[in-house]
């Protein structure tokens, strides 16, 4: 008579066991087999992130075809500036060119927007970095009417 309430414990134990079983089965079913191979994560996630397509083709891809511009820039002040820094992301252009399909022609950047972005006089720019007061230097003139962006020095 004294231990009749022990039934409650058995019931509780049964529920707990069932719960554990569900957990174990669900984990075995739903967790990828290689989870935890390199750490506490799903290794396939790394491949998924790597599979992302690029937008910027990279300097070597540009130089493969446009060696004339590379040569022109070799002696110029802008030699260390990557092509896509001014011309924008052109991976589609580069792949289309190497596939032989018709490639979208890149848009020529507007000098007045582009040059100003880096060379406008502003506080905080490094001491030796070439800057100009745009209004005083050029008025409303477009930078490109005097400077050639690939070799900006006026000769």
């Amino acid at each position, binding site marked *: 008579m004294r231990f009749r309430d022990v039934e409650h414990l058995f019931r509780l134990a049964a529920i707990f066991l069932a719960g554990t079983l569900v957990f174990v089965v669900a984990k075995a079913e739903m967790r990828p087999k290689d*989870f*935890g191979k*390199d*750490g*506490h*994560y*799903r290794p396939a*996630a*790394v491949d*998924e*992130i*790597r*599979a*992302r*397509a*690029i*937008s*910027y083709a*990279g*300097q070597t891809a540009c130089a493969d075809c446009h060696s004339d511009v590379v040569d022109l820039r070799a002696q110029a002040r802008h030699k*260390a*500036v*990557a092509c*896509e*820094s001014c011309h*924008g*992301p052109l991976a589609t252009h580069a792949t289309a060119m190497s596939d032989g399909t018709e490639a979208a022609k890149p848009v020529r950047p507007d000098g007045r927007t582009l040059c100003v*972005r*880096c060379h406008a006089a*502003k*506080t*905080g*720019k*490094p001491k030796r*970095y070439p800057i100009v007061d745009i209004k005083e230097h050029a008025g409303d003139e477009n930078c490109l009417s005097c400077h050639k962006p690939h070799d900006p020095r006026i000769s």
Partner: protein
Amino acid sequence: MDRREFIMVGGKMLFMTAATAAALEHVMAGTPEKVDTYKAAEHWWALLIDVEKCIGCGSCVRACKTENDVINEPFYFRTWVERYHIEATDAEHPIVDSPNGAYDGFPEAYEEGKGKTFFVPKMCNHCADSPCTQVCPVGATFITPDGVVLIDKDYCVGCRYCVQACPYGCRYIDPRTHTADKCTLCYHRITKGLVPACVEVCPTGSRQLADLKNPSDPIHEFLRTHAIQVLKPQMATGSKIYYNGLDGAVR
């Protein structure tokens, strides 16, 4: 030729034909079968930021958003640039601004000659002992064998714990997926032998990708010969974004 031999030879031929057919398909299509030559264990990625070269043009911010399809609104940045202004006698209270993360560069401000002003590019520090990966309850964020902290978007439950844990404020919740997002160091690029988009477009070479496991990488020489600092060294995060010429006032 007995039956066993016949089956062996026949089987081999059948197998060979399939392999040859597969190879021929690639030859005909003109695409060499892609072999993954990237070995994660042979790299340990880091990034060098030269504060003294940064002109605050915001090219990195724009390139990052394009390359990684980051939502083009304020507050969602994988990398951004801050402008610090410090009055000469009050180094403890720098004035910091970053309008739209410097996506459009910086407007004019601060009188020349009063105090100092400089730009500090910021991004995920890809910490070796990162707080964000330690707090993730589901194993959705982790550090790869080559030292890049990544997010598994399929596993992320969007609990925001990592956003709070990051001492550098580098994470945000992508409003489209409701999962955590941040800089991947352009993992899809560096594993192909390219540099991250921000490094690619930086016109002054303020950002440099570095592989600490590559003995011929110029980073080793640079780290030896320059005064290098990481952000919040007191947090012991093992940050791998090395800053050259960083002012002590930068947080």
